[in-house]
């Protein structure tokens, strides 16, 4: 069972490596969106420090959403997904592996590049770690919740916009906790509470989301 998961993760990573531009686009989108805000609201350092965590988190949400459309569509197009459905491996394991691969490709780079954006927003040096940690705990939830939406909207006309409409309201708790943890740390308080709840959400999502993704895939492909 773990072999199957490892195979799928390895395969998806390999596919992503062969088409690095796809990965790069989502990452670039993250950077561009975050860089647009100072142009819109003005470059007051105090203002930027105040909105920085929220803006970076919203940009991460949108960037994660952007790459969700590709999560199942290529496999759906060439029939691989049906093979996975028919295969002996339990579908939730397949779904979890796909979610993990999506996070490695679309979530982890955001975590790594976020400190650079924090620099743009003049966040205190001590906050870089909190921001990266909150993204590290939060982005897997985004990938897993998003995968449910991606599986439900598989092959639909206008699936991209619909996916955003379905998934973004569900992202609200992650956004609040993630940005809140950085705000908390910026105010000189311990961000442990938010980070722990984010971690709990990540665990919950890891346990339950694969089943929901699997059910959604079955509904979409039957």
């Amino acid at each position, binding site marked *: 069972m773990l072999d199957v998961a490892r195979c799928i993760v390895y395969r998806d990573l390999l596919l992503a490596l062969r088409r690095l531009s796809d990965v790069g686009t989502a990452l670039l989108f993250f950077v561009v969106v975050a860089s647009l805000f100072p142009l819109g609201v003005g470059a007051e350092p105090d203002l930027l420090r105040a909105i920085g965590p929220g803006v970076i988190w919203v940009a991460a949400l949108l960037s994660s959403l952007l790459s969700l459309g590709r999560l199942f569509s290529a496999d759906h197009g060439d029939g691989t997904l049906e093979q996975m459905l028919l295969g002996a491996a339990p579908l939730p394991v397949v779904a979890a592996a796909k979610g993990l691969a999506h996070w490695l490709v679309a979530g982890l780079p955001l975590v790594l590049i976020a400190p650079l954006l924090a620099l743009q927003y003049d966040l205190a040096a001590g906050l870089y770690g909190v921001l990266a940690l909150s993204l590290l705990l939060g982005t897997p939830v985004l990938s897993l919740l998003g995968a449910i939406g991606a599986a439900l909207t598989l092959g639909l006309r206008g699936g991209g916009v619909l996916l955003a409409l379905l998934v973004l*309201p569900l992202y609200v708790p992650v956004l609040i906790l993630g940005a809140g943890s950085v705000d908390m740390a910026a105010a000189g308080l311990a961000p442990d509470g938010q980070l722990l709840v984010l971690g709990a959400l990540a665990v919950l999502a890891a346990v339950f989301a694969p089943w929901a993704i699997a059910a959604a895939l079955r509904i979409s492909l039957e």
Partner: protein
Amino acid sequence: MSTAIRWFWFASPQTFLPLAGAIARWCALGAALLAAAGLYVGFFVAPTDAQQGEVYRIIFIHVPAAWMSMFLYLVMALWAAVGLAFNTRLSHMMARAIAPTGALFTFIALWTGSLWGKPTWGTYWVWDARLTSELILLFLYLGFMALQASIEDPRRSDRAGALLAIVGAVNVPIIYYSVQWWNTLHQGASVSLTRAPSMAAAMLTGMLLMALAFWLYSIAVTLVRVRCIILERQ
């Protein structure tokens, strides 16, 4: 055994169609009577509020609408879960029929709330925890309806919507508590929706009458819509 058969007797759309029509008719009548009584109590019997004046009378619409908006989402998710578990077409039809009414009440709650907020708080909108969660609830309803509308195959449409409704229902408490926490964290608006401690009996009566009227209205409208869906599909 025989009760089990009776339970599922009306699960068939054909047998449910006439029953739904009869229930809908009586519920619509009841809703009209109760709403008339509730509005009478609300406008003529209930005393003027000492602090808020006449403006408070909007709660006779606002509070029942807010109750129904949340309750209907749970009912919808319940029907969706029943539909997925027992594979009954009628349950999916019920979930589909409830969604527009739920969205309508969510919208009415937000709308009347902002009309009430302007004279009382001095602003149409604050990022209060309840307002924000109600807004997100509206987004959840709209997402459910948009998903169902964009899938043409009725079976897939039903089941996809059902799964989304269940995922949403699991998320609603998490969203509610996170929003509440976020609001207390930011402490932007100091106004809260907690009402004056004592409420005149007439106010409470009016509100309960209106809540009952909204209940019956929801049942009637949902059943009418279910009838349309049944006729459309068969």
